[in-house]
């Protein structure tokens, strides 16, 4: 069962479910399903019950900070009476977001998610205030600790998570250390040891 089939069954099974396929450039060719976070929970329940992806092996967060994409754009412009083609570098700022990636396999039904994972992605609005995602722990309990770790190290808020607390750092810790823009405390060893 290819990813396109899963996508079409998902769109029929969960009415109005916004799904698109993200192509993966590496030779592993593990493309993924990007699902809008509003109907993430319904899609997950459908994937588990109908397509029998009953084993959520890996659930992790990825931090995509704001990026500047500079690309050369050829525009035709009238320069002092002569129309010429000028190459301009256009800096488009792509807003960053936090992304949750779930790798789903199937133990009972071997013709989907058998050797290659069905990858499911959900993205938050931005990286500062709108960072909530639906928790998939009610669907797969294996995501419980991994979502707590995403909350602890990346700051992704999960609604519907039974016990959302910090799992690795202590309770009073305020930062989200796995984010790309995390600045560690001025621990004097860091400069001496030449850490980043």
């Amino acid at each position: 069962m290819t990813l396109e089939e899963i996508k079409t069954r998902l769109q029929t099974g969960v009415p109005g479910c916004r799904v698109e396929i993200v192509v993966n450039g590496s030779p592993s060719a593990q493309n993924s399903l990007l699902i809008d976070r509003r109907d993430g929970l319904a899609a997950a329940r459908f994937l588990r019950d109908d397509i029998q992806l009953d084993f959520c092996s890996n659930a992790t967060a990825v931090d995509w900070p704001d990026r500047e994409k500079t690309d050369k754009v050829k525009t035709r412009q009238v320069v002092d009476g002569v129309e010429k083609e000028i190459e301009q570098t256009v800096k488009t700022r792509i807003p960053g977001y936090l992304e949750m990636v779930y790798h789903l396999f199937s133990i009972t039904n071997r013709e989907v998610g058998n050797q290659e994972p069905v990858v499911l992605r959900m993205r938050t609005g931005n990286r500062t205030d709108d960072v909530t995602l639906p928790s998939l722990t009610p669907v797969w309990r294996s995501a419980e600790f991994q979502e707590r770790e995403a909350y602890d190290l990346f700051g992704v808020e999960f609604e519907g998570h039974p016990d959302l607390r910090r799992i690795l750092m202590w309770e009073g810790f305020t930062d989200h250390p796995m984010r790309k823009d995390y600045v560690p405390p001025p621990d004097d060893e860091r400069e001496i040891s030449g850490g980043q």
Partner: protein
Amino acid sequence: MDQDLKTELSKHGIFATTFEELYNWGRKNSVWPLTFGLACCAIEMIATTMARYDLARFGAEVFRPSPRQADLMIVSGTVTKKMAPQVVRLYNQMPEPKYVIAMGACAISGGPFRDGYNVLKGIDRYIPVDVHIPGCPPRPEALIHAFMALQDKISAQHLTGESRPRHLKAELPSEFPVPDFGEHGLEPAQNDEIFHNPLKVLQG
């Protein structure tokens, strides 16, 4: 007690010793470590107590789980910032005389995980360390060498006079302040009475 008189007497089968030597001989051959495994070095520590490397030859195979009955803490593994207060509290709860072996590069200076945000850069920031063993993990023979170094240290201690060990001096503290969890790291970052950062000292 001069040495050649002693060897002379022992040739005739007379064994002479000072009270101090007897006291140290008794203590150094029955150092009881605390079951305190943190990470990979703990597995090498267990392998050292097993049949092949046999820590029992040095009288140290009795691993006591409770700090009340232990007199040696082997810090074997990476001390993280979340674990540091517990390590210091366990050290405080051990009765005098107590010793610390910092086993492995992580316990000495953070080791390969030094640049981690949750890793304490060495346990000598909060508690005094008696023997350092480099290695990641140090081989069982290295741990046995550490025990021999500790035993030499114990047998060189004097009962009276200025060079008495820490546990015989009333003014030296037997407890060290336990760091508490702050917003971004441990507060205080280190205990300045006993930790003198070697690199800072070099920079003057």
